[in-house]
C-alpha cells in the first residue's frame, strides 16, 4: 500500500489472537481525512474484528492504532467514541424500548457534552437530524417495532448525529430495499469530505455507487488495495470470494 501523507486513522502490524487463532495477522491500513474507503472480503476475513479493535471493543494482541496522531489501541470504547469514532455495528445495536427520537437525542446530547455547546439547542439539533435523515415520521415509534431497513436508518441517524470525525459502517445496506440502498448511497456520498468513512459491504453494486478506493481483507491480512473497478475485476479477489484456493 502507498503510505498516506496525513492519515486520520492508521494501523501498523495490527494482530488479534483468540486463543491460538490469529484472526488479524498484521494489518497495515490507513485512510486520509475526508476519505471514503470500502473494506471488502469474504466471511471470516476479519472485517468485523478489525472494526472492534478500532472502536475499543477488543484489545489488540499486538500492533498500533493511531487516530488523529494519538495512539488509541486498547483504550475503552467510551474514550475512543469521545475522540471521534462512531460505529454502526453489523447487527444493529439499538435500544429496542426507546423511540427513534430518543436515539438521536442520546447521540446529540453526548456530542454537546463532549464538544461543548448550549444545552438549549439540543432539541432543535435533534429535530434537524430527524429531518435530514427523513425519519421524522418515525420519531415516536419504538425502535423495537420497526422494520429492519428502518432500524438501519435509525442507527445511521444516531451515528451521524454524534458527528464523529471517523464513521465506521459495518454492512449498512444489509436487509435494505433497493430505494433504501440508493438513499443510503446518497447519504454516504454527502458525508464524504466532511467526515472520513470506512464502509464494510458485500453489495458490489453499492460499492460501485460510493467508492473510489477499496481495500480487500483476506484471512486477516490486506490482500490488495486499489480503485474500485480494478479491485472488482481482479482475479485474486474473485477467487477469494468464490472460495478458490489461492495459487501460491
Amino acid at each position, binding site marked *: 500500500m502507498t503510505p498516506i501523507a496525513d492519515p486520520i486513522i492508521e494501523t501498523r502490524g495490527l494482530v488479534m489472537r483468540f486463543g491460538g487463532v490469529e484472526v488479524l495477522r498484521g494489518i497495515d491500513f490507513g485512510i486520509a481525512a475526508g476519505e471514503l474507503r470500502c473494506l471488502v472480503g469474504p466471511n471470516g476475513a476479519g472485517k468485523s474484528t478489525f472494526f472492534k479493535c478500532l472502536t475499543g471493543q477488543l484489545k489488540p494482541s499486538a500492533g498500533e492504532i493511531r487516530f488523529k496522531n494519538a495512539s488509541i489501541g486498547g483504550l*475503552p*470504547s*467510551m474514550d475512543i467514541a469521545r475522540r471521534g469514532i462512531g460505529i454502526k455495528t453489523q447487527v444493529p445495536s439499538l435500544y*429496542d424500548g*426507546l423511540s427513534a427520537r430518543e436515539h438521536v437525542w442520546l447521540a446529540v446530547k453526548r456530542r454537546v457534552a463532549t464538544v461543548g455547546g448550549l444545552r438549549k439547542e439540543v432539541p432543535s439539533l435533534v429535530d434537524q437530524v430527524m429531518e435530514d435523515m427523513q425519519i421524522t415520521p418515525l420519531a415516536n415509534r*419504538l425502535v423495537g417495532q420497526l422494520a429492519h431497513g428502518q432500524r438501519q436508518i435509525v442507527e445511521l441517524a444516531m451515528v451521524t448525529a454524534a458527528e464523529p470525525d471517523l464513521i465506521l459502517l459495518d454492512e449498512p445496506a444489509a436487509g435494505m430495499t433497493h430505494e433504501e440502498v440508493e438513499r443510503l448511497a446518497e447519504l454516504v456520498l454527502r458525508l464524504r469530505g466532511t467526515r472520513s468513512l470506512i464502509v464494510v459491504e458485500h453489495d458490489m453494486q453499492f460499492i460501485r455507487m460510493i467508492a473510489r478506493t477499496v481495500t480487500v481483507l483476506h484471512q486477516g491480512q490486506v490482500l490488495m488495495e486499489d480503485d474500485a473497478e480494478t479491485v472488482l475485476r481482479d482475479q485474486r479477489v474473485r477467487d477469494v470470494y468464490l472460495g478458490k484456493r489461492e495459487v501460491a
Partner: protein
Amino acid sequence: MTAPLKAVGWVAGLALSVAAVFGLPHVLELFTLINATIYVSMAILTLSLALIWGYGGILCFGQAAFFGLGGYTYAICAINFGDSTWAIVLAMVLPALVAALVGYFIFWGRIGDVYLGVITLTMTLIFLKFFNATAGDAYKIGRAALGGFNGIPSTPPLNLPWDVGTQLAPEDIWYIAASLLVILYAGSRWLLTTAFGRVVVSIRENEKRSELLGYDVRRYKLGIFTIGGAIAGMAGILFANCVFVSPTMFSLFYNAQVIIWVTVGGLGTLLGPIAGSIALQMIVAKLGTLQGLDPNVVLGAILIVFVLLVPKGLQPVLQDWWDRLREPRQPAMPAPAPASTLRSAGIERPLTSATTAHQPAANAASRP
C-alpha cells in the same frame, strides 16, 4: 394518552394521595395507623429497588442493607445527639456513601449479572452477621449500645428540627412517611425525564451502544445506585421510628420481600411495585392472623405464580387491558419493552451456547 388526559390523571392521582395522606389518620385506629406507616416505609424501600432494578437494570440482592444501615445510623446518631435532625441527614448520607463505595467496586470492576447479585447479597450478610454479634458492652458507639440480636429497642422518635422538646407523635410520623412516599414517587418520575434518567434507561436497554456513543456507563450506574441507597436509607429511618432497629433489617427475608414486590408490581414501573408492596403486606398480615397458615407459604406461592403466569407484573398487564378497553378495534401492539425481556437482557445466557465456558479468552481480551 393525550396531554390533557395525562394532566387529568396527574391531578386525580395527586388528589387521591392527598386524601389518603390526610384522611387515613381520621379513619384508622392508632395501631393500624402505625402499621400503615410501616407499610409505607417498606413501599419506599421497594421504590428504591424499582428504580435501580427496573430502570437501572441493576438487580441488587442486598437492597435491605441500605435500609438497615439507614435505620442503625439514625438510631445511633439520634441517641448520641439527642436531636434527630442531623441523624436524619446522616442516615441518608451513610447508606448513599456505602452504595457509592460498593457501586464503585462493582461497576468499575465490570461485575454484572449473577455476580452482582452475589456480591450485594454477601454485603448484606456481612452486616447481618456483624450486627448479630454486637451484644455486650464492647459494642457501644457513644451512648448507643448496638445490642446484638436484640437491636436497639429504645430508638428515639423524630423531633421537630433543632427542637428536641417537641417529639413527634405516631400520627405526625404517618404524615411524614406518607408525604415522603408521594414526593419520592414524583421525584423518581421526574428523575427519569431528566437527561441523567434517560441515559440510565438507555444503558439498561443496550449498555454497549451507550458506550459506543461515548457515555461512561459506570458513572450513570453508580449515580442511580447511590440514589437508590439514599432512598433505602430514608425507608430505614421511618422503619426505625415505627418499630425499632435490629439485625433482621439486613436479613434475607427483607431482601427477598422487596424483590418479590417489584416483581409482582411490574419490573420497569414505579407505581406497580409501590402498590404491590402495600397490598402484599396487607394480605400477609391478614393471613398471619389465620390459624395454621404460615404467611411464607402464601408469599412463596404468589411469587411462583407471578413468575410463571404474569412475568410482566401487575401494572403492565393492567395497562394492556386498559389500552385494549379504550381501543378495542385496533390489534394489540406488542407491549413496549416488557419486563420479562428487560430481565432477560444481558443476564440471560441461554443454554444455546457454551460461551461462558469457552470464550473467556475473548472476554478477557476485551476487558480493558
